[in-house]
């Protein structure tokens, strides 16, 4: 556009002739050049994530979520818990005091999708596993203000009523296996048994607090997931420090008293 070229006045006379000739007149060249330019940054940052040296790293002290925990994680995603609760303890003194050990990269290695969160309307949950009894989580979901006076969290009473569909859980475990989470075919075949066994453990621990719950309810799966959070990392760090490993079993009973 002539007027466009003139827009800068005398000082810009003749400027940009290369740009006009090569790009503005030839849309194909322009589009290809732009595509190359926008691809560079992403490729430089993302591809090295798959390198053992430059990437976030993996560790064998982290194990995949159990089928019940996978189901609980799906519920956590469905209810949008990650929108108010992060899962990332930063290496800062105040965070160590408030939440515990800062998060190590391999702790996320089986997280699909990641759930680091972007906002803390409520506290971080990276190390919530084992922090409270199962009954606390049950009551907290039924009415958050019964356990945390003044909380602004909504109630989730439907979690206490809705039942899990084992076939649905199996579909999730199967899909995760297909992407590369190390579940064996026996794990996939045994989803129902595994869900039942781990759920029974949580129901038993709820019973000791006087709570009657059905083992196939969504709340049981969510408790299993929450009690698992941060446990692998915590135990590994304790072992590393040469102390007695934490006696709290994260699996299969759902842990945490």
């Amino acid at each position, binding site marked *: 556009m002539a007027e466009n070229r003139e827009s800068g006045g005398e000082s810009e006379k003749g400027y940009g002739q290369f740009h006009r000739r090569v790009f503005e007149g030839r849309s194909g060249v322009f589009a290809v050049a732009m*595509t190359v330019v926008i691809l560079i940054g992403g490729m430089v940052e993302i591809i090295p994530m798959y390198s053992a040296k430059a990437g976030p790293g993996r560790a064998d002290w982290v194990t995949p979520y159990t089928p019940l925990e996978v189901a609980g994680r799906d519920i956590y995603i469905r209810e949008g818990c990650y929108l108010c609760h992060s899962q990332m303890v930063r290496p800062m003194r105040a965070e160590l005091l408030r939440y515990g050990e800062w998060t190590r990269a391999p702790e996320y290695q089986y997280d699909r999708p990641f759930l680091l969160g972007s906002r803390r309307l409520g506290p971080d949950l990276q190390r919530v596993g084992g922090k409270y009894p199962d009954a606390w989580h049950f009551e907290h979901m039924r009415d958050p203000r019964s356990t945390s006076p003044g909380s602004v969290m909504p109630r989730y009473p439907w979690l206490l009523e809705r039942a899990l569909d084992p076939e649905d859980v199996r579909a999730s475990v199967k899909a995760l296996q297909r992407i590369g989470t190390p579940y064996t075919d026996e794990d996939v075949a045994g989803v129902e048994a595994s869900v039942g066994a781990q759920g029974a453990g949580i129901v038993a621990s709820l019973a000791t607090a006087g709570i009657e719950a059905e083992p196939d309810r969504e709340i049981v799966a969510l408790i299993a997931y929450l009690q698992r959070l941060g446990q692998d990392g915590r135990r590994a760090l304790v072992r590393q420090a040469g102390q007695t490993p934490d006696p709290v079993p994260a699996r299969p009973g759902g842990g945490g008293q």
Partner: protein
Amino acid sequence: MPQGSARAPAGGAAEAVSPPRAAAVAYDDRIVKMFLGAVILWGAVGMLVGVLIALQIAWWPANLGLPWTTFGRLRPLHTNAVIFAFGGNVCFMGIYYSTQRLLKTRMWSDALSRLHFWGWQTIIVLAAITLPLGMTQSKEYAELIWPIDVLIAVVWVIFGINFFGTIAVRRVKHLYVALWFYMSFVITIAVLHIGNSLVVPATLFRSYPIYSGLTDALVQWWYGHNAVGFFLTTPFLGLMYYFLPRAAERPIYSYRLSIIHFWALVFLYIWAGPHHLLYSALPEWAQTLGMVFSIMLIAPSWGGMLNGLLTLRGAWHKLRTDPVLKFMVVAVSFYGMSTFEGPMMSIRAVNGLAHYTNWVIGHVHSGALGWVGMISFGTIYWLVPRLYNRPLAYPAWPTTHFWLATIGIVLYTVAMWAAGLMEGLQWRQISDTGQLANPIFVDIVHRLAPFYWLRLAGGTMFLAGMLMLAWNVLRTVRGPAPASEPALPLAA
């Protein structure tokens, strides 16, 4: 509204040479009007949901005790509605209007234009159904489940074919700067959407990404930050490059600056994603790259701001009377402010305080309400009288809308800055005995309540302005057509 001269001198480029009425091209303005209708509808809905979730934070019973109205399910509905339904339809409205005029040709295919429109609205309706039902992939601004993601890709390709098809049959040799920005929008959003949506389905409603853990987080914020960059920035800069000179009746300040800041912006933006993961376990080198490129982004961002503001040289007096320019100047100013604030928040030490707090929410909204919202409103108020060939039904309302929106944004952002700083500082405060000074998290939440109510007031004012615009446009469209002489000779 300015009942201005027939042609903007050199403003929107092509028309200065030969006004469209002289050309033998029949532009497709029907499609522009369809997108305008969608903007009005989804804008009001999306902002209303925003006000509701703001209320839920201030007063939890507003979650209404139903699964599909809890904050966790409505927050994605709000973000998707305002970004993709309101913002997306604004972009398409402005692109379909200006591209035809800049290239002096009708859109390549009317059928593809309609498919694009109805496909996009279908996606929005599907989003409005699935998100409250809790069907989500959990990645921010990419929550929609995989079948809808497939539909988005298809509709985007339709849009892309139609857009590049129109460029191919253009009757103007050189591409005006607005079109460069539109091209970056079409290409980059396709790349980002596909890259971030690669999943393995488990059921029709659920899937798992092929990336895991921190790689997944990095891919998501490569997408997420560039949704800001290429959905909420570059197409709107394109709109600025077309509509601001038209409204100001001045040529763009500097062609040289537009070349430099365009290429720098599209190159640098892509790198900035990791600033969402500072202090995480993401490898240090990636965090540092994200921080450094975020800081560099200030230069091309301000290049765009300056090119917009300086276009008004010699036309500043028009601001007194023209609400369209008021909206646009405040929009460009907010663009400048939030693109200064963003790089600052990407500095690791600042991010340590700001991350996870309301400050981030304030930052997002100074960009979304201040930049995207205001440039959209200015564009709409400029466009409607020309599209419908009649003056606005309530010509004084845009000025009221302008002040409501501006004061609303200021209340919103100031409240969120204060709340963010307060909670960030109180989370980290250590007492003399070496313990947390505020060990009970919920105590801090309670101290934020006054700011949440203030934010709600600001957001409600912004929504009220949006409703004024909706009613004004509706009454204008439904109003009587001018009997004889068109009110605005510019209208095509």
